[in-house]
């Protein structure tokens, strides 16, 4: 989706949500989709937000796109922690279903245009928030909160850097997902006589072996998963320093190294399944479980999917490694909550953010959602074998931000790159692709 969307909990949910949107946009006479407003905790019957709420009471409206599966349950768990600590507030859950974010962001844009921000909303930490909401002066910097709560000591320095602009921290990250993970089934690899490759060169020779044996080397899905693969190839081929330089304007999008990386990417695409463009990410991951494909590169929400299919990360029924060439680098993305400027109930919003950044809040949310806390001091007992290994990497690895999931590029730039990628998939011309990427960085990104 969206197709730069991630983690749709049900394959059909985006489609159904789009049906709703289409129904609303193509028939002007119908009323706009109602925002589901469910009140959790002690709520007065038929409560409407009182005007000019006095500090220390009232409703706290939390806006997100977490409406189903582990993420909705995780949010509910965090609401419970909040209700325990702050019985004086009532949480209003303003979650907008569907499309993992696309619809929610359209609704949020409308509310901000009307000057009616919720007390806090969910957004991908990094440039996605900075490029859209900070640029429009909608957020308050949170440096004071990070200092008061001591979060600067428990969250990695690079993380803080990558979610800030001009020294201002803009959101409270509640979780961390890893993007550069390669998934496989160890027993199958043994049968086919291959090892998980550690570089893209190695991948290409392994892939040839697999293809000769009649196995699809790499399972891929619809276009946003291709963008996801693209960013891991860039990271693996360029290394994390040159990768980071691409996004801050100091790197050269016309370099020969990038040309080589794009050529590798083009070769990798030749080893993917021929129905990739028709599969959602879950079905692409399923190809690996079914033994139709050897590897899948997907963020670690895939682990949640494997577990939901009855597999256990502790017994070796599926395996994982860093995507080729990126061992020792943690390519991250994060869901975070913000403090809107000019919000009705600022005290309530701050109370929520304190919970969202706390050890207790994050340890309530993450085991259920299937991600790791942004904090480096979680209660490890609560997490499964994969998540524990991810925590080790989160503490020790170099950090690189994800493109597909909103960390390194603002929305306009990301759409520009996605369009260039889409055109590349149609014509497979590396030179044209590289030129389009360079133009996108100049027109929409920080390049001169």
């Amino acid at each position, binding site marked *: *989706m*969206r*197709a*730069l969307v991630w983690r749709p909990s049900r394959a*059909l949910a985006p*489609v*159904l949500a*789009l*049906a709703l949107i*289409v129904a609303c946009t*193509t028939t*002007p006479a119908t009323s706009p989709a109602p925002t589901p407003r469910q009140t959790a905790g002690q709520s007065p019957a038929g409560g409407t937000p009182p005007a000019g709420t006095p500090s220390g009471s009232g409703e706290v409206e939390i806006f997100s796109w977490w409406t189903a599966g582990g993420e909705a349950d995780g949010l509910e768990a965090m609401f419970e922690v909040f209700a325990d600590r702050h019985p004086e507030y009532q949480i209003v859950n303003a979650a907008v279903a569907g499309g993992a974010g*696309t619809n929610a*962001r*359209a609704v949020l*844009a409308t509310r*901000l*245009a009307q000057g009616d921000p919720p007390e806090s909303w969910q957004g991908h930490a990094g440039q996605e928030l900075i490029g*859209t*909401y900070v*640029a*429009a*002066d*909608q957020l308050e910097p949170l440096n004071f909160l990070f200092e008061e709560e001591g979060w600067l000591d428990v969250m990695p320095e690079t993380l803080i850097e990558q979610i800030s602009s001009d020294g201002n921290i803009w959101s409270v990250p509640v979780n961390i997902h890893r993007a550069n993970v390669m998934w496989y089934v160890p027993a199958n690899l043994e049968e086919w006589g291959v090892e998980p490759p550690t570089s893209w060169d190695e991948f290409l020779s392994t892939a040839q072996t697999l293809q000769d044996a*009649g196995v699809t080397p790499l399972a891929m899905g*619809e*276009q*946003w998963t291709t963008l996801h693969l693209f960013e891991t190839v860039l990271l693996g081929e360029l290394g994390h320093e040159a990768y980071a330089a691409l996004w801050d304007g100091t790197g050269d999008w016309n370099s020969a190294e990038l040309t080589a990386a794009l050529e590798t990417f083009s070769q990798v695409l030749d080893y993917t*399944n*021929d*129905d990739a*463009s*028709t599969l*959602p990410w879950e079905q692409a991951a399923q190809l690996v479980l079914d033994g*139709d494909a050897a590897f899948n590169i997907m963020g670690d929400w895939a682990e949640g999917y494997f577990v939901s299919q009855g597999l256990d990360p502790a017994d070796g029924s599926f395996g994982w490694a860093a995507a080729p060439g990126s061992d020792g680098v943690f390519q991250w993305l994060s869901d975070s909550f913000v403090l809107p400027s000019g919000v009705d109930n600022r005290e309530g919003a701050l109370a929520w953010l304190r919970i969202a950044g706390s050890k207790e809040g994050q340890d309530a949310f993450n085991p259920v959602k299937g991600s790791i806390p942004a904090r480096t001091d979680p209660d490890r007992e609560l997490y499964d074998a994969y998540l524990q290994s991810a925590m080790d990497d989160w503490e020790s690895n170099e950090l690189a931000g994800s493109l597909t999931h909103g960390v390194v590029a603002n*929305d*306009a730039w*990301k*759409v*520009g790159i996605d*369009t260039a*990628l*889409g*055109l590349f*998939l*149609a014509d497979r011309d590396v030179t044209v692709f590289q030129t389009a990427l360079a133009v996108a960085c100049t027109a929409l990104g920080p390049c001169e």
Partner: protein
Amino acid sequence: MTAARALRRHWVPIAMLSPSIVLIGLFVYGFIGWSLRVSLSEWQGLIPDYTWAGLANFADLLNDRRFQIDIRNTVVFTTFFIGGCVGLGLVLAILLDRKVPAESFFRSVFLFPLAISLIVTGVAWRWLMNPSTGQRTTGLNLLLDSLGLDALMSAWHTSEPPWGMAFVALPAVWQMTGFTMALFLAGLRSIPEELKEAARVDGASELQVYRRIVLPLLRPALLSALIILGHLSLKVFDLIIALSGRDLRLDVPAIYMWTTTFDANNYARGAAIGIFMLLSVAILVVPYLVWSMRRETEL
């Protein structure tokens, strides 16, 4: 008759109509005007910015490779969609008009797909047109394979551009053929039997009766079908989203508008795409409206 007298005589219908006139004026024409204004501005990001940009957004679009693909895709889709619906619909209508037994049963069968939303059609055909090969072959390809018709197995909508787009028209034709059939059937039923009888008495063959009498008299039905199908195909969005997500090879202006406006927050350019779509539909619909209004005044 003076205006005052007209008002006195017709105040009830005027009063009844005015709320909808006001609402349509505001929510349709008002917003068209507003979109036009936005499309001539520099609005990017969440904050409205009405700085005058002239036709820059439109000029950018015409030089945009993605938009050129969109236009090509729309042309391919429209051609196959309208051709398929009109051709098949006409054949079905003529067959049904030949007094087949259980006609109403067949009519309902052909009309039923119309009751399904395009999203559902898209999801179902996404499974049917699955392009997997080898052991994972499913859907229509599996059917063709088991019938021994392997030669017809296809990559369907994932074929090389622009032919993938022609396959996208397949589910749309499946859905809308019943509708054109109904239009043509109504047209056929309105042709007086005497005309055909007279031609037959004069020695015309059955083929000549259809070519010289029936088809020319079906022209109004054909025109309605073209207008309705044409504006649907220029606005197609839901079917493609359900069928292929946002695969750029199957991109159309409506999807580009959505992406530009709500993902990239480029409201000015999104509005420009919207205005472009409006104009392309207007080119189709306005001559029809003028023509039918003129006919009404003649009557």
